[in-house]
């Protein structure tokens, strides 16, 4: 591991601790310090991605680069989300998730089928990985919002209105943010699936008979159903939040399967 990677992981840890302290600590405050820590982390992480690029390690060429890119997109996406809305509580979920993803990326062996390809197939592979990273990041943020929604709603329903309750955003704000993030993530993920299928069909070794492809399809169906149910039956609130968590869990399973495959191959 290089020094920049270690610094980035350490900064993610610091930002996570600060956001968790803000959310669960006995005293309110410190959110600005946490935000600046995460901004610094995102900048350093961008520098790390740039350094990898300078070493001819394309972030959208393999799983290793993609995991790091997802981590950065999650952190940056969260920071952008919090510019206008009071969603700082999400940081307690996003910062640790980004840190874990970056660490996983660092432990994942490099190389993938994408780098072995040439010309249009290579471009297609990179487009698939890039779109997948964007889609996963959007759904990841939607899941962080959904988890906070469930905690907040549970507190309100059971009248347990402690300090944690006061530090979380209003339910409507969370529901609306979740809806927007799914609407952003779904077209990106759809394109990622389409490019992925075309790419996989033309890969000489892989083909489409892999469980992760079917689970990805199921994930797409879950998020598609969520949008459809929101539009037609007015699904919202807890139900929508739980379905978001289910969809993202399937997505995490796909990433784990890819990861296991890479580790076994490595």
């Amino acid at each position, binding site marked *: 591991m290089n020094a920049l990677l270690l610094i980035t992981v350490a900064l993610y840890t610091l930002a996570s601790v600060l956001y968790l302290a803000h959310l669960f600590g006995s005293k309110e405050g410190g959110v600005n310090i946490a935000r600046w820590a995460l901004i610094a982390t995102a900048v350093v992480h961008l520098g790390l991605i740039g350094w990898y690029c300078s070493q001819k390690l394309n972030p959208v060429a393999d799983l290793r680069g993609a995991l790091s890119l997802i981590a950065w997109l999650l952190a940056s996406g969260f920071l952008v989300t919090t510019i206008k809305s009071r969603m700082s509580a999400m940081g307690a979920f996003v910062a640790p998730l980004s840190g874990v993803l970056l660490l996983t990326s660092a432990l994942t062996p490099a190389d993938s089928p994408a780098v072995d390809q040439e010309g249009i197939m290579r471009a297609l592979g990179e487009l698939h990985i890039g779109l997948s990273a964007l889609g996963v990041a959007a759904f990841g943020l939607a899941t962080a919002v959904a988890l906070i929604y469930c905690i*907040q709603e549970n507190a*309100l329903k059971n009248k347990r209105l402690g300090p944690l309750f006061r530090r979380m*955003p*209003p*339910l409507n704000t969370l529901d609306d943010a979740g809806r927007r993030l799914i609407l952003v993530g779904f077209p990106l993920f759809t394109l990622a699936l389409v490019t992925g299928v075309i790419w996989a069909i033309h890969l000489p070794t892989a083909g489409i008979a892999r469980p992760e492809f079917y689970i990805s399809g199921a994930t797409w169906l879950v998020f598609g159903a969520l949008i459809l149910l929101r539009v037609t039956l007015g699904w919202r609130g807890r139900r929508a939040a739980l379905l978001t968590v289910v969809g993202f869990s399937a997505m995490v399973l796909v990433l784990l399967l890819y990861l296991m495959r890479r580790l076994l191959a490595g």
Partner: protein
Amino acid sequence: MKFLVVGCSFRTASVDLRERLAYSAEELPHTLCALRELPDVHEVMLLSTCNRVEIWAVSGRPRHGAQVLMDYLARDREVDLAELKKVLYRHHTTEALTHLFKVTSSLAAMVVGEPQIAGQVKEAFGAASEAGTVGPLLNRCMHKAFGTAKHVRTETDIARHPVSVSSVAADLAGRVFGDLANSRVLVVGAGEMAELAVRRLLADGASIQVINRSVERAQQLAFQLGANAHPWEQLRGQLLLADIVISSTGSKEPIISRQLVLEVMRQRRQKPMFIVDIAVPRDVERAVGELPNVYLFDVDDLEQVSAENLKERRKEAGAAEGILGQEVTQFEDWMRMQDAVPVIKDLRQHFTEVVRAEVGRTKHDLGLEQSARQRVLDSMADAIVNKLLHVPTMELKNHAARSDGVFLARSARHLFRLPSRQQEEDGEPQENKGKER
């Protein structure tokens, strides 16, 4: 000059006596002018709320000033002085400042942390300013008190825990909807409780609809609140549109059933609904709260939230006392510094006069009165005064904020035979009576 507080509050006086002592807004201007005319009262303002009646003044002789103010109150409000003395507290100097900052920061309020008192103090200060009874010291002190109140509210969580039914309901509704300015509130029942509960929501800019079995009463309340009234038959239709429902009818049976809300929620596509049931017996079936996207709070729930919030406020009040102590000390230091200003001025004037006289004589002896070179001598004279007085000025300023400041100022006057002033002569011992701190 010293600060002085004479008054009574809900802790020391009965509501009957407070009512007799209270001053209306119309009475304030001439009362303030009359108070200002009293001997030993240099600056004055009068705070009269339902929980307290207090006179805040600046006086050269605070003990005597307090007596004068008590006599005035007894005479003006036709209350027996002996009876009045039992309930009035009298504070001066540090105690008075601490009390004044406490009151403005709502730490001495019946419900600790309620923000209304800061507004009432501002109104009282405004009335006194208009009446011309506020001088530089009271003006500075009040701005410090307002700053302290703001400091307390921002540095502690004292204001973040609502305790009245109205503010608890509005706070909880805010946890669901965020901004309440665009929310629609349906008031079911037109009783006094509903009116009280809806006040905070009204202040937040929510649109209010009133529905009641008696349309006339609904219209009456709607008129008072600037809201719309609807006939009872439109209950279902209004539930379809409402974000927040506040129910307080006198019905013996629940009027909002689980089935009704279930159907309404389907029709409104699960848009969240926040229901506050302040009726006893309850208007809303308990099972309504189990429906998705419906949040139901009854009187017991609100009271529990209120009690917990009050506990939190009291905890925060401890932290606020620390802030208050620091602010009072800072203000007292500033006041003592002000005490050093006259002696420094007199000292400078005395030295300047002596040196200028000597320089004038020298100019005359040397025949330089008409020469351009005389300016050099003037500059030299000013420089000598500045250099000679630099250390004594710093020492007087530094010691002004300490206990030996007055002694040093008096010594300077004695050593250089400067004319004496009131501030340094005023050595009246402290005396504080009364129960409230």
